[in-house]
């Protein structure tokens, strides 16, 4: 568009109007930040930086700390990433490079539909299908045969657990990692792929050589983006993690997450507990903000480097 400022008063009025709405969105964002900062102030003043390293959560004694929640959030998100990344990158490679033409559309559409399912439905399915399945098919045998010498698989097995939350989370973040991975894979120059095939390479060698070289940073970006999603996921995690503020070592132990404690206790909290919950919200906000910023930075750098935007 011409950059010159229009002299037509109606044009200027319309521009001002749209700028007003844009400024409104900016205000809403700032307002959110202010609300979180202001409302968490009492807890911040009382506990200071010790809030992050304290494991206390005692509404009666009015002692609050976020460590067990931060721990639960970070561990479940990390495990979810560990499960989701290989699967989604593999599926992305399958859709882009191996699947027959007629299969590409349906598979990617189905994967996108996974992203459309509300989180509370994942939670419902988690409680009544995934948890019982994991308990009888995986957790019980593992605890029985490996639990006594590997702390990771130590019982007792309840069902709702860190493992269940991580598996459910991984299912939920797969579509996001998948779609970004596919975009990243699409940036590989077709000629380089053809070159490998032309000198007699197999399809897998093509993937390993060309895709491997081009896409590692992009896939890392997709991973970080998925991490951002996993950190803030609330309902599904709340419903299957067991909601017990502990520092755990076993995957079968019950845990808690930052989002889950807010979801469970907020409506009935008051005073210092409310403020502590909002402080946890602020920490979660900062955490996801930084992670998303990192993902954006990695991915935008990549697009610039390949100079192949779409």
């Amino acid at each position, binding site marked *: 568009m011409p950059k010159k400022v229009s002299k037509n008063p109606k044009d200027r009025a319309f521009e001002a109007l749209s*700028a007003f709405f844009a400024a409104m969105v900016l205000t809403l964002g700032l307002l959110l930040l202010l609300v979180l900062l202001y409302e968490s102030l009492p807890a911040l003043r009382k506990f200071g930086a010790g809030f992050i390293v304290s494991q206390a959560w005692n509404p009666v004694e009015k002692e609050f700390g976020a460590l067990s929640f931060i721990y639960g959030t970070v561990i479940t998100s990390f495990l979810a990433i560990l499960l989701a990344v290989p699967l989604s990158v593999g599926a992305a490679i*399958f859709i882009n490079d191996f699947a027959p033409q007629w299969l590409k559309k349906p598979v990617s559409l189905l994967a996108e539909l996974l992203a459309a399912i*509300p989180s509370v439905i994942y939670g*419902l399915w988690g409680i009544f299908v995934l948890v019982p399945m994991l308990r009888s098919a995986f957790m019980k045998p593992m605890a029985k045969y490996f639990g006594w010498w590997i702390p990771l698989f130590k019982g007792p097995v309840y069902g709702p657990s860190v493992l269940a939350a991580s598996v459910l989370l991984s299912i939920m973040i797969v579509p996001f990692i998948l779609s970004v991975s596919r975009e990243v894979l699409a940036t590989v120059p077709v000629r380089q792929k053809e070159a490998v095939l032309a000198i007699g390479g197999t399809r897998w060698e093509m993937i390993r050589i060309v895709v491997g070289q081009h896409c590692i940073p992009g896939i890392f970006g997709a991973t970080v983006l998925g991490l951002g999603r996993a950190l803030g996921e609330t309902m599904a995690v709340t419903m299957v993690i067991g909601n017990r503020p502990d520092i755990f070592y076993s995957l079968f132990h019950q845990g808690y997450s930052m989002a889950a404690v807010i979801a469970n206790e907020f409506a009935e909290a008051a005073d210092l507990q409310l403020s502590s919950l909002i402080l946890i919200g602020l920490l979660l906000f900062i955490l996801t903000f930084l992670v998303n910023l990192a993902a954006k930075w990695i991915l935008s750098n990549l697009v610039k480097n390949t100079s192949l935007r779409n």
Partner: protein
Amino acid sequence: MNTLSFRRKAIDTGMRWAFCLCAFLVILPLFMIFFDLVSKGAKELQWSLLTNLPRPVGEEGGGIANGILGSFVITLLTMIWSVPIAVMCGIYLAEYGKGRLASAVRFTVDSLAGVPSIIMGIFGYTLVVLPMKRFSAWAGAAALTMIFVPIVARTTEDMLRTVSQPVREAALALGIERWKTTLYIVLRTAQAGILTGILLAMARILGETAPLLFTILGNQFWQTRLDQPTAAMPLQVFSYAISPYKEWHDKAWAAALVLITLVLFINIGARRLTREKR
């Protein structure tokens, strides 16, 4: 042509199947979830579910009618003001968006889109519930606004950017004023994409639970005013699911089936819209 060594061929075939397995495992949960939703939800799916109020445990025929109404009310309420805000914000970013304000707004929109939805619940609680001293549909709509606006502002900007420059220039060359060009030509050209974005965002907020927990709170009865605690389908799914009663679990599955049908209906309809246009 030289024959491929057996080893290379075997690795290639193996990897091919491994990738295929990945794709299968990725979409397997979708089928499992749908299967369970239909098989567990269908038996409770009767008219009474859609027309009756929730009833205590032990009484037959309880429904989720107030939740369906509540979900529609807060979704519509949110959209009444969110659509204009988001679309105008998108217009600003795409058509005028240069300079410091624009980059600040763009950064805000991108950041808000990544904020966990439960935090938007805190927003609605402190800005609406606390001053009004009551849980209300207003508070829920305030929280959902924070989810809706960034999504739609972003898609509007993206869609307007796909309108090619010559279209604008042609309109301006005909002597059409710029604001008219933007509203009647550029926006009209991109309308299918923008509408898709709006519907996708609508499907998203229809299924949101976390931001509603402590803004609308839920209600066992009909809500008649906007400043009352309000029921919503996702909240009912949640509270039925975590209850200790078998019959309420069945209700949760049925309510979830209704919810997912609505959400997917809107979601797939929205995708259709852009596909036909292209």
